[in-house]
């Protein structure tokens, strides 16, 4: 179901922008426009805390004067503002340099099919019902255990946005999508030890959200299990990344094979195409047309058709992740990844989370990572961590105030197993990931 009237209204504005750019002498141009509406309601300690109504819009245009480029954006969609924004972009293009790689995508790569990806499911929840739902969620957490001592609250968010993009090659398309979420964050206390944790659910369709009481309960369980964490002595050991943080490992990998880092030579995976990056059992692929999924779209940020394709198979790097510009810099073609990957998925093995713990045997289960600490140029990796010490496949006690370190090149090559405990809540779909060995620093 699409919001055709709104899409047409925005299409007209984008077309006006492109026409104005042509009038001002641009040889080519592309423009995007988004209109968003939403509601966020949060409750804390059993009562409503904030009600936020969101209403935002923004447009951006990039113009080309042959190989020179200029960009401008505004939140003001009045006709005068559109004219000024185009003028600002054109004025900038007088000062930027000729860049032989700059320009719109090749016309034959632009999307020509626009399947309904099932992304638009307005919730229509009233403010009162949203308050009640947030309170139900937080109550489930606060009533779960007497050691749940405080709360940062629960919140309900519903959001609908329409996005239209067009360019002077005649591309002009848009779609409306929704996104709803429910989250809860509570504190647990035992003696001097105080810990906080959270859980959330997010979906295009509110019917697919996890039950409020389940979210509250999980938030409480997660805060409780962290109480009385200890540090570890400095050592090397195997590390199991829980599913909800394992996506970060794959995102770092994607960063290293992204066009921008490759042409700047700021990646530890330069010239790695067709070489073994992962063990042979690993396959990683993109599924941009998955119905109702959070990362789905028929075209990328430049209007290039997105496509399902293998990025890694049999552990070998099969494709980079490229926009038009980075592709040209590398002498390749866009892979439809302007703006990133969509529904990145890794094939999982046969083990569930318990099975993965058994496979880990004795080592560290990491459930939280802190800080940046990832150098994509060198692959050096060093991050703050919290989680659990595991012996003989059994969780022993919570650990905190430690770091885990290694080099991404070794870490990816030495993945032992991927669990089937997939976390579907984000744009990267993976189960827990077991890495053979990393350095742990502690007391």
């Amino acid at each position, binding site marked *: 179901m699409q919001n055709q009237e709104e899409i047409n209204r925005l299409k007209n504005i984008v077309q006006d922008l492109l026409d104005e750019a042509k009038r001002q002498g641009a040889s080519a141009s592309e423009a995007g426009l988004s209109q968003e509406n939403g509601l966020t309601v949060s409750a804390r300690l059993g009562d409503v805390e904030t009600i936020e109504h969101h209403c935002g819009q923004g447009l951006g245009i990039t113009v080309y004067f042959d190989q020179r480029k200029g960009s401008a954006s505004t939140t003001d969609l009045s006709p005068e503002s559109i004219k000024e924004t185009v003028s600002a972009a054109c004025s*900038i293009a007088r000062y930027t340099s000729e860049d032989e790689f700059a320009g719109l995508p090749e016309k034959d790569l632009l999307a020509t099919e626009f399947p309904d990806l099932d992304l638009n499911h307005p919730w229509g929840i009233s403010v009162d019902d949203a308050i009640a739902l947030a309170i139900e969620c937080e109550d489930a957490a606060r009533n779960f255990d007497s050691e749940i001592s405080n709360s940062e609250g629960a919140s309900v968010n519903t959001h609908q946005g329409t996005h239209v993009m067009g360019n002077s090659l005649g591309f002009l398309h848009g779609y409306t999508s929704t996104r709803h979420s429910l989250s809860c964050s509570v504190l647990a206390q035992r003696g001097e030890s105080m810990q906080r944790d959270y859980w959330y659910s997010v979906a295009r369709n509110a019917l697919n959200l996890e039950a409020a009481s389940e979210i509250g309960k999980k938030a409480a369980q997660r805060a409780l299990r962290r109480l009385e964490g200890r540090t570890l002595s400095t050592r090397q050991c195997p590390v199991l990344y829980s599913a909800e943080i394992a996506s970060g490992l794959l995102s770092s990998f994607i960063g290293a094979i992204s066009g921008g880092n490759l042409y700047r030579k700021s990646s530890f995976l330069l010239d790695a195409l067709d070489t073994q990056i992962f063990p042979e059992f690993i396959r990683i692929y993109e599924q941009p047309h998955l119905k109702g999924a959070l990362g789905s779209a028929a075209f990328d940020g430049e209007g290039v058709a997105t496509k399902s394709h293998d990025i890694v198979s049999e552990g070998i790097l099969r494709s980079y992740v490229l926009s038009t510009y980075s592709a040209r810099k590398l002498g390749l073609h866009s892979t439809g990844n302007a703006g990133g990957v969509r529904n990145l998925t890794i094939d999982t093995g046969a083990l569930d989370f318990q099975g993965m713990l058994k496979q880990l045997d004795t080592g560290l289960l990491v459930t939280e990572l802190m800080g940046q600490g990832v150098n994509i140029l060198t692959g050096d990796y060093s991050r703050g961590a919290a989680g659990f010490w595991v012996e003989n496949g059994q969780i022993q006690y919570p650990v905190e105030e430690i770091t885990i370190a290694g080099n991404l090149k070794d870490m990816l090559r030495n993945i032992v197993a991927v669990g089937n405990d997939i976390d579907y809540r984000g744009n990267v779909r993976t189960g827990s990931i077991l890495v053979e060995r990393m350095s742990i620093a502690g*007391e």
Partner: protein
Amino acid sequence: MELLNLARQAILIPAGIQDGDVEKIMSRLLSSPVDAADIYFQSSHTESWVMEGGIIKEGSYSIEQGAGVRAVSGEKTGFAYSDRIELPVLLEAANNVKAIVRQGQDVQVGLLNTKNTAFYYPVANPLKSLAEQQKIDLLRRVDSETRKLDGRIEEVIISLSGVHETILVVNQDGSLAADIRPLVRMNVTVIVVENGRREQASMGGGGRSDYNYFIDQNLALEYGKEAVRQALVNLEAEEAPAGNMTVVLGPGWPGILLHEAIGHGLEGDFNRKGTSAFSGRVGERVASDLCTVVDDGTLQGRRGSLSIDDEGTPTEKTVLIENGILKGYMQDKLNARLMGVRSTGNGRRESYASLPMPRMTNTYMLPGSHNPEEIIKSVKKGLYAKNFAGGQVDITSGKFVFSASEAYLIENGKITRAIKGATLIGNGPDVLTKVSMVGNDLELDSGVGSCGKDGQSVPVGVGQPTIKIDGLTVGGTSV
């Protein structure tokens, strides 16, 4: 011309909004018995230029403007914003927002102009401080001078950006306050290569000033030199050690320690709610008596400085820790009222589209008595961390991290080998109790910091003298 009229001209007049319209919106907000209400108008113009691969590759210009209306009752907040500064839209927003309280009343508000009492930066538009061609020439000069510095330089990426922001905030008593905030930033990233090994480093700075800031005293060229120096050091860097050891932090930007380890934990909202590891600890010892830490929004021209915060409150120099004793928290209006104290001028918001909350400005430690060389000399075996990337904190458990980007081993009182970047992790409430020496070399950072909280980013500053910490966990690979 005074700030209020400049702000009216920048935001209200182009939108056709009169003072009487603002009174109508506020009266509508107050037609429910709320404790506090405000309307925040903002107009911000931003430009950025990027030079890469020896060419001026990108330029962009953006205009962001809108208004946010808020009503607060007890601990409850209603909020709505719009990019459209139009009377019917804002009246509708006020209707939605005041629904946080259900009874009605009839109130008339009259506007009351206020004057800022202190000015920590000029009102001039930084975007106009250089002609376009001069901005391009500056980038080109930094590029060519930097590339000349060493044969191992493979790529130089330079960015230059400026913001000209005008805000106008109306409070429930009808008081109107305005501010015009310039902000400029420049950054140089260098990639070097030697025998197939590739490393990079960045250096930059800026402040609430105009582009001449980078030209006076040749700061722009200094950024290039410093980026090259750090990148070349990284070419020599060896595996970092892992484990708990004595750590000496250099002056300036390593003050990110203070921001993460104690700053966030001392923000009023977390302490009102009792979710911070520092909650209820005012008057207690949280640092060695060598440590005095302040948050200071009143420094001239600093990236984190503000003449008034986003609620119209003048900023202050707030003592957080004095000789090791916790003195107080950073407050916005809502949390101050609920805790029975006054706002410290720390109410900040990313834009009209987000709610204000207690945020830091410039957070730094006052200097001590030690010569920095003495401090290094006192360490038999440890780590000297000179430069950092970002950091993060869990305010409830108190655990914080910050990642070194330039570090060395200290062996027998001397700085010896360079080591690879590594994350340092510690516990906020006790890390400063382990500070055993504080240098006399206080420095503030060069003006690069941005702080994220609840998805909102604001510019901040940090600083400190050289300090010695007797035991912090260093997350290297060499076990």
